[in-house]
Structures are given as structure tokens and as C-alpha cells.
């Protein structure tokens, strides 16, 4: 399992962006993960708690958004969402398929606490305190 390498990478990216935003603390990390990416989120959370201690990300919550896998049949163009394992086209049973989505794995955004208004206003969106659950 390469979850440790993945978690280190998440920490690097989150830390870099937090510092750029002059944050004092990262509270939430939003990750988007396609159904087809073979990452175990429990393991990532486990490593995260270990390696983020003593960093700007200490105590931050990891939030995983799962994206379903969507396939397109190259014979009849039918687009369908995968429920279980990979299967052929439900209409024409062709096995010539294209993966439209489901492989993505990226860090979408971070929620941070900043001591002051950061310099790059344009790139940042303020969240009302009361909007945070």
C-alpha cells in the first residue's frame, strides 16, 4: 500500500498552500477521490494523524468526496455509471469502453484560520463562521 506516500504528498500540498495564504492553522482538507483510485481512506486518515502532528495541519480533518466512475461505450456511445465492478456496456455489451471519470485524485481546497486578511484576496473565498458545521 502506498497510502503513506500519498499522505505525505497531501501534507506537503496542504502546508504549501496554507503558508501561501499566511494561515496559522489548517482545519479541514478537502480531497476528491474517484471510485477507481485504489486508496483506502481509513489508512490515509491514520497516517495523517501521525505525520501532521507538530505541523500547521495538526488536528485538521480530512474530508473525502467520492466521485463515481462513469464509462462511455465506444460502440453505441451510451454513458453509464458503474455500480460495482467493471462491466461491459449495459445496452450493446461491448467491451470497448472509455473511462470518463472516476480516476481523479486531487486536493480540492483547504479551510484555514488566518491571523489577518491575506494578501491574495482574489484567490480566496471567505466562509462565514456560522456556515461551518
Amino acid at each position, binding site marked *: 500500500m*502506498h497510502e503513506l506516500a500519498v499522505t505525505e504528498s497531501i501534507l506537503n500540498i496542504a502546508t504549501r*498552500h496554507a503558508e501561501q495564504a499566511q494561515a496559522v492553522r489548517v482545519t479541514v482538507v478537502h480531497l476528491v477521490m474517484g471510485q477507481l483510485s485504489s486508496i483506502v481512506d481509513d489508512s490515509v486518515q491514520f497516517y495523517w494523524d501521525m505525520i501532521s502532528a507538530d505541523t500547521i495541519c495538526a488536528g485538521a480533518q480530512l474530508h473525502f468526496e467520492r466521485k463515481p466512475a462513469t464509462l462511455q461505450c465506444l460502440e453505441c456511445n451510451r454513458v453509464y455509471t458503474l455500480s460495482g465492478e467493471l462491466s461491459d456496456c449495459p445496452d450493446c455489451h461491448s467491451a470497448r469502453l472509455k473511462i470518463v471519470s472516476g480516476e481523479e485524485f486531487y486536493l480540492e481546497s483547504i479551510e484555514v484560520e488566518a491571523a489577518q486578511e491575506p494578501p491574495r484576496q482574489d484567490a480566496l473565498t471567505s*466562509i462565514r463562521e456560522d456556515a*461551518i458545521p
Partner: protein
Amino acid sequence: MTTLRVPVVEKILSANDRLAEQNRARLDQCGIFGLNIMAAPGAGKTSTILRTIEALSSGTPGSPIALGVVEGDTAAVTIDADKIIAAGRPAVQINTGGECHIDAVMLSGALNQLPLDQIELLIVENVGNLICPAAFSLGTHANVLISSVAEGDDKPYKYPNIYRGIDALIINKIDLLPYVEYNLDYFRRGVELLNPGVLTFPLSCRTGEGVERWVEWLLRKVKRET
């Protein structure tokens, strides 16, 4: 204290991808074709490399080809690298220290130890694993998976990710077909779902059957003929 949401949108393994691009540029600069071989432990990665070295040393039109090998293992052993060196080719052993794959950083370090100006083909034997190597691009020009018939015919269904990113598939140990329960059609159907039209090379490192066709394909790649 204000709370902000900072948009990021950065691929998790983007640092690895960037380094992989640098590796690729370095290989291109030296005119080297890079081949990444992935498979489960025992599928026949080292055996295939040795067969390939043999074929590219003499006999095959276009040979000899100067090649170097990078051997990846999770433990600090040099068993595979020793075999390559015994076959007369430069080899570098990467000890991944327990990691389940080679990443672009590790390959970059290994490239420093090879006589890059003297080789035309670089073969990387990835760590025996069907999950993790698929996620880490190295910068090689082709990714090849070896699946041996001894592993069973259901592997594409169980390890879909690794089948998706490959440029060619070797089906090794076909000499064992009479002794194992293996439905080649079922296997191929799974592969077709994941990677339509991917080139397959059924072969046996034991008997040598099918090796010629594989080596011809590789040689065309090395000579940039396709």
C-alpha cells in the same frame, strides 16, 4: 481570526508526475528508450529481462543493443541485480525501504549511477506488486505488465488499475497452460474491458516460445520505428 477556504485543486501525486517528466527529458536527451516492467512477485520479471538481454545481445536483427537495468526491491537484496550483472549488463539496485513501488525520485537517483551515454535501452524492474506501481509514473516511454498464467485468469478483474495504464501485456509461463486451470478467453475479456486493443505477448521464459515476437516489438520501439 478569520476562517478561509483556500482553493487548491492539485493532483495528489503531482510532485511525482513532475519528476517523472524530468526523468523522461533526461532519457530523451540521451536517446534512451525507457521500459517499466510491472508484475506480481514471481510472475517472471527478472526472467523476461534475462531473456530480453539474451535476444538483444546477438542473433536478433538490429542487435546488439546496449542496455542497462534498474532493479527495484523492497528489501536490501541484490539477487536480481546480480543476475543482470552476471549477464554482462550494468544494473543498479534500488532498495525502496519497504515501499511497495518505485517512484520517480528513486528512479532519478538510479539514473545517476548508470552510464547513460552508453545505453540505448533502460529496463526498470518495478517492485513485485499489482496495485501501487500503477499510481506512480516514472517517466519511462512504455509500461509493460507481466501476468503469468500461474496467477490465474481473474487478475484483470481483481487488479483493474494496473491493466489500464499499460502499453503492452506479456502473458508469461504459457508452458504451464496444460497444468493450470486458466481460461485465456476470460482473461482476455477482462483485459479488453480495461484497455481495449492493448498488445499482448503470450510467451514462456522457460521454453523461449513467443519471446521473439516480444523482442521484435521492443526493438522497434527502441529504434523509434513505430
